């Protein structure tokens, strides 16, 4: 099986066959993570540049580990240490590093579309590790893998994404991927945090959490940034928490075999209570483990899927 796209820029428009291939390959590669020697030589011929223009802990470590587990060579680059601060453009930066012969670029950037822009001007394979409020496709894939682990398939599932949809690339990638694989998706949040015409993405839109949760299988709770209050989008985190926070009391609206997810980092007590985050139905830590497996699969498949997995 071969991927259709040479890059992973987002999940919008990615065919179901490609998504399933990512997920199936992730399951195969995940086994490596539980071996005593958690490393295979599969990508030892590949050099990956991790280009992070935005602070990131989890995604960055996850990519770095995925690369190490597959024996890829890696270069880590962040805005603070780059020549970008000296006024060099992104293209000059990337062209200079490319001249040193690299194969893939993992990019995190605060401006939507930057991975697409790079793909138009570079020879390397581009992996989007989150671009502005556009997409975060590996997060979408790891969320889908985590749901598939529990329910066996995504078709027919009802997934509710709660919180700051407007600024969430995680929400957008989840919506595209889940809908492609036949899940139904709803979003719920205060109207000021719902982006314009979000319903045209094919989701149901709610502003009452009880209605949104009614009959859902999965709740994906998004992080609420503190600055939404100061920028005038919310009266207070307190009011948000009262109206939209996922508490144990609210879980009664969900289907019996429900699942709680969160892409992290969590604001405990704001968008989710500790009781729920740490409860028996939370898969927040398995999500993180799947993150490494999914990123291994993406690196492996985009590099051509030719190296042997031993």
């Amino acid at each position: 099986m071969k991927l259709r796209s040479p890059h992973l820029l987002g999940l919008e428009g990615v065919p179901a066959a490609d998504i399933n291939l990512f997920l199936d390959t992730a399951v195969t590669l995940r086994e490596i993570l539980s071996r005593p020697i958690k490393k295979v030589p599969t990508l030892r011929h590949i050099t990956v540049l991790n280009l992070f223009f935005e602070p990131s802990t989890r995604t960055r470590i996850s990519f770095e580990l995925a690369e190490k587990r597959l024996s890829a060579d890696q270069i880590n680059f962040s805005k603070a240490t780059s020549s970008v601060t000296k006024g060099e453009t992104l293209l000059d930066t990337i062209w200079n590093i490319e001249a040193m012969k690299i194969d893939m670029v993992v990019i995190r950037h605060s401006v939507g579309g930057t991975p697409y822009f790079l793909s138009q001007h570079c020879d390397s394979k581009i992996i989007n590790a989150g671009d502005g409020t556009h997409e975060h496709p590996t997060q979408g894939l790891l969320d889908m893998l985590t749901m598939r682990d529990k329910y066996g398939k995504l078709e027919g599932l009802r997934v509710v994404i709660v919180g700051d949809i407007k600024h969430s690339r995680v929400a957008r990638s989840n919506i595209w991927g889940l809908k492609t694989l036949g899940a139904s998706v709803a979003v719920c949040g205060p109207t000021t945090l719902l982006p314009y015409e979000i319903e045209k993405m094919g989701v149901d839109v709610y502003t009452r959490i009880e209605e949104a949760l009614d009959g859902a299988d999965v709740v994906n709770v998004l992080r609420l940034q503190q600055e939404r209050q100061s920028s005038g989008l919310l009266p207070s985190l307190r009011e948000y928490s009262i109206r939209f926070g996922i508490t144990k009391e609210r879980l009664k609206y969900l289907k019996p075999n429900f699942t709680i997810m969160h892409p992290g980092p969590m604001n405990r007590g704001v968008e989710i209570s500790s009781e729920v985050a740490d409860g028996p139905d939370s898969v927040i830590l398995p999500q993180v483990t799947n993150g490494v497996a999914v990123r291994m699969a993406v690196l492996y498949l985009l590099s051509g899927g030719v190296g042997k997995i031993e």
Partner: protein
Amino acid sequence: MNDLIISGGTLVDPIDNYFGPGAVVVSQGKFAEIIKDKKQPKGNIDASGMIICPGLVDMHVHLREPGYEYKETIQSGALAAAAGGFTSIACMPNTEPALDNQEQIRFVLEKAKAAAVHVYPVGALTKGRQGKELAEMADMREAGAVAFSDDGTGVQNGNMMRRSLEYCRMLDVAVLSHCQYDDLADGGVMNESYYSTSLGLRGATRIAEELMIARDLMLAQYTNSKIHIQHVTSIGGIELIRNAKRQGIKVTAETCPHYLVFSDDCLKTYDTNLKVNPPIRGKKDMAALKKALASGIIDVIATDHAPHAWEEKALEFDYAPSGLIGLETALAVVATELVHKNVLDWLSLIKLMTLNPAQILNIPAGRFENNLPADITLIDPELEWTFAETDIKSLSKNSPFVGWKFKGRVTKTIVSGKTVFEL
């Protein structure tokens, strides 16, 4: 002595809606005789198969001089204009420093003496285009400014706009208004729509533009002043202008070729050449703008020619400056999209690009009339061609039209009897 006799073509003169066989006689750089008849003297320029029209007028260009000569100069911008069939252009004051005093206006006019086409400076409404104090507009008017504008940004303060309109009424010139409330635009880099949501780009609501149009129309009515709304992009803006015209408010309006052929879904490629302020709106707006040109609600097609260097545009979308060049392509775009698709006929199109802008600016152009400067554009209405980067005369190449196939092309541009462009 007659220098030029252009004959054998279809003469188009919007002043009396003439569209038919005709010839133009030029003497000492001025029109000497206009013949609207089959009977013509033998010419020394054969225009058979061509449209002979008054030189095109673009009332909205950015020439970047002084301050940004690496993007464009008055000379290079004038060459780009000539290549696009424009013989008169009005340049906006958002230079560095801004054209906000008599000296700056004189500087532009001095430079313009050597330019290929007539260049008419537009002065700033407020000092430094800061929107805080009126600029010395009477001085600038005397020095040769043809209109006033803080183009590039809207005048955010309503009272400042009122004073600007009142002061310009005394000078009998139009205020050209770039309409956008920055607070409502909220830092948006494209039209707020489904596409800004799915592309993850910050959206600027159309209300930011429409609300300021509404304000300016009310102020123009209240102060009995002339207002010209620049680069109208949306259905809402069109409706406001239509109603204002019905009420007798002295309003004129322009739109630009890019708003007629691109819609916000085109931003899927994150092409920074489509990043423009105000932003490209939706497909319905595009259709409504075409109708508004046909029905006369919008009076002018202007380019908003906005040159930027390659390295300024080859950036992440948010970091690239707004604007695209348009002088070389404007006529071809609207000929292809409006005339050949039966939205407008040639006479109406030419009126939108000659007589109407010339009347708003009150400049000696846009019509055939004895003793006016002999500015003439010849157009091959059927010529099919592909726009290549090598066709760009501007110093900057930020055109989204490279590679586009067009029908209709300017073949000769004559300014004061002198050929400044020839295909």
